[in-house]
């Protein structure tokens, strides 16, 4: 990667950029919703508890008040004394809160009623029942409490948190209390007398001149416990989600970039000239698949072009090639090259053939000349010599010896002449010359040589060049067979076919390795001769023997 940021980075970055804030926002919203709903629920509950208790307390006080019969119970109290604790605003008759240092800081109420005679009766009440009502803690959890506050902002009921201390010791001027004394009923979050934040519901309580604020409160800490748990869970979920998203985005990025990188690898190999690979990737995505299909096709076509060029390189000009498309310049060039090579090759083959032909015919001419020289020059001299010897007056024994030597010499000349160029080849054709050759060789070897000739219109005479070629090949085959094959039988078949002549040699000898045989000039010579005349030469050899099959077209 030379320039730019990788796709992988972008994918991971964008996916995370998209998802993480979304999840964060959703979580935050969810959290807020939850908090609001908790607030509402808690306050609602507190309100109802507070309301219930207020009613209970008011009922209780009213009941006590009604039950209070000034004539039958209670002490008489003077107006003076009474005015000590009765507030100036309210009347003397009624319920008075006389909690104070005298009561030891515990709740103390005084019921004051005027009897028919105008005397005030007073009865004290310690508010056990009220305590009971307040301590009833159903639905209040661990930190919930309901309590009463007097007009002097001192607690009237015992603090749940400090049961051993008297309520009068605590002063409470919380938002709830202040609001309550302003005759407001309400709820809210504020700090209580301990200075701890609480959810609270408050109301002003008024019974027969008694003025209190009743409050039901619960610590926010406790109330918000579920929220904390939720928060914790949310954070965990958030972290896990982000992790999962990160991993997924990595995976996605990988899935996207892997095929690209793989393709880069293939392209690199291709640009390095290596097309010898199979593309078997199964990438995700339709477009990727399309791309890979195109790549495979490209490679396949390249391969075909390459294999074609390879064939051309190996001079296999029979190879064919189908153009990949209209713009397949390479293919076109290769085809043109093939055509050029084919032409050159043809010309070269032709030239070679002509050359070989020229060599062969030159050789044969020379042999013919030599043969004639021997036959016409040396032959007559020898016969003449013999005649002269015959006509000389010599001792019979010496004369006969001389004649024998001359006869042997003549025979040798005949043999040489025949081998160089049998006159019969020109006069009678190749079939008869081969027949004669076989007859000449038979006495010299133990091998059974069988010559079979299937004649045709040409009667074994196919023109000098073909005759000579067939005769030379036969000579070579028979010489090799007799010398090397260790065969028992040699079969030689000459068949005149429609437009060609076939020479078939077969022996049952030990065979030889056609490719490594040394001194193979004989073989290559046979091949060259066949080639010069546009024929085919096939040899096969193995342990069971050797066969040679030569076919030559008739001479034109």
């Amino acid at each position: 990667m030379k320039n730019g940021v990788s796709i992988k980075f972008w994918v991971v970055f964008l996916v995370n950029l998209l998802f993480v804030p979304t999840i964060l926002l959703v979580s935050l919203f969810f959290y807020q919703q939850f908090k609001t709903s908790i607030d509402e629920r808690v306050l609602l509950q507190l309100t109802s508890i507070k309301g219930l208790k207020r009613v209970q307390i008011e009922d209780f006080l009213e009941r006590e008040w009604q039950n209070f019969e000034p004539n039958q119970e209670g002490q008489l109290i003077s107006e003076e004394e009474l005015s000590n604790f009765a507030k100036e605003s309210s009347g003397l008759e009624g319920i008075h809160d006389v909690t104070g240092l005298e009561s030891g800081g515990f709740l103390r109420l005084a019921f004051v009623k005027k009897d028919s005679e105008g005397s005030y009766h007073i009865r004290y009440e310690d508010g056990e029942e009220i305590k009971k009502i307040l301590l009833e803690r159903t639905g209040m959890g661990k930190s919930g409490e309901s309590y009463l506050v007097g007009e002097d902002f001192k607690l009237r009921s015992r603090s749940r948190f400090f049961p051993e201390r008297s309520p009068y010791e605590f002063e409470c001027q919380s938002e709830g209390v202040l609001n309550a004394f302003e005759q407001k009923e309400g709820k809210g979050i504020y700090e209580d007398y301990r200075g701890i934040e609480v959810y609270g519901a408050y109301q002003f309580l008024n019974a027969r001149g008694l003025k209190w604020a009743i409050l039901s409160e619960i610590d926010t800490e406790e109330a918000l416990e579920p929220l904390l748990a939720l928060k914790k869970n949310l954070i965990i979920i958030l972290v896990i989600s982000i992790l999962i998203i990160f991993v997924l985005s990595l995976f996605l990025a990988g899935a996207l970039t892997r095929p690209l990188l793989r393709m880069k690898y293939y392209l690199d190999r291709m640009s390095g000239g290596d097309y010898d690979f199979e593309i078997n990737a199964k990438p995700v995505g339709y477009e990727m698949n399309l791309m890979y299909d195109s790549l495979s096709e490209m490679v396949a076509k390249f391969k075909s072009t390459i294999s074609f060029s390879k064939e051309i390189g190996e001079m296999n000009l029979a190879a064919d090639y189908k153009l990949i498309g209209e713009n397949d310049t390479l293919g076109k060039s290769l085809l043109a090259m093939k055509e050029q090579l084919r032409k050159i090759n043809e010309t070269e083959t032709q030239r070679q053939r002509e050359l070989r032909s020229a060599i062969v015919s030159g050789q044969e001419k020379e042999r013919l000349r030599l043969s004639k020289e021997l036959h016409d020059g040396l032959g007559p001299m020898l016969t003449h010599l013999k005649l002269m010897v015959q006509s000389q007056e010599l001792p019979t024994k010496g004369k006969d010896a001389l004649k024998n030597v001359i006869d042997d010499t003549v025979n040798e000349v005949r043999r040489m002449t025949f081998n160089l160029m049998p006159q019969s080849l020109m006069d009678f054709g190749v079939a008869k010359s081969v027949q004669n050759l076989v007859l000449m060789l038979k006495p010299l070897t133990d091998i059974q040589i069988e010559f079979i000739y299937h004649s045709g219109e040409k009667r074994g005479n196919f023109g000098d060049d073909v005759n000579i070629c067939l005769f030379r090949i036969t000579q070579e085959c028979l010489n090799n067979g007799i010398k090397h094959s260790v065969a028992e039988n040699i079969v030689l078949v000459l068949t005149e076919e429609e437009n060609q002549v076939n020479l078939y040699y077969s022996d049952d000898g030990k065979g030889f390795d056609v490719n490594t045989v040394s001194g193979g000039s004989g073989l290559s010579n046979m091949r060259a001769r066949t080639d010069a005349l546009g024929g085919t030469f096939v040899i096969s050899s193995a342990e069971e023997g050797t066969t040679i099959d030569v076919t030559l077209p008739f001479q034109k």
Partner: protein
Amino acid sequence: MIKIGIVDDHQLFSSGLAAMFSNVENIEVVGTFDDGEAFIEFLEKDGELNVVLLDITMPKIGGLEVLEILRKTRPSIKAIMLSMHNDGNYIVQSVRNGALGYLLKNADQEELTKAITAVYEGKKYFNAETTELLLNNMAVEGEVVKKLSPREREILELIAEGLTTKEIAEKLFISTRTVETHRVNMLKKLNVKNSAELIKKAAELKLI
């Protein structure tokens, strides 16, 4: 007196021969001729002779042609071929063209005289060597009956029975290649293209 002519393009040889015959009773060399043409010209001028010694390979008109002309124009003249060729084909062809004798050029005086005398008397003359060559080549000429070797016949019979090359090889304890070679040999020998034709031809020739 036997009048003879010598036709040979090698003057040294013919003159030597003539010189040799000059010492022989009953034989008179009428003339020596350098080639067939000269001899034919001599005959056309009503030249007379009894026996002619003919070389085969000569310029212009060769010995074998001269024989044909003689047979048509002067059948009374007896011809002996005197050649360097110890090739049976020439002997067969000479006999076909009407020669009564065939001698190799290195024949000695006695044999030549013997041959001339025999031919003059209307007999044929061939010595042991030329007879053998003649017979060998005659045999070839007449050899139309194809022969199969015992092993080939054996294989052919198995082919006819419908066995495959492999089965035949297993049966005869030889390699499939050998069987193939024999089969191809037979195809070639009988000049046929395939096994079916081979069986048919072999049956026709009563080889199996």
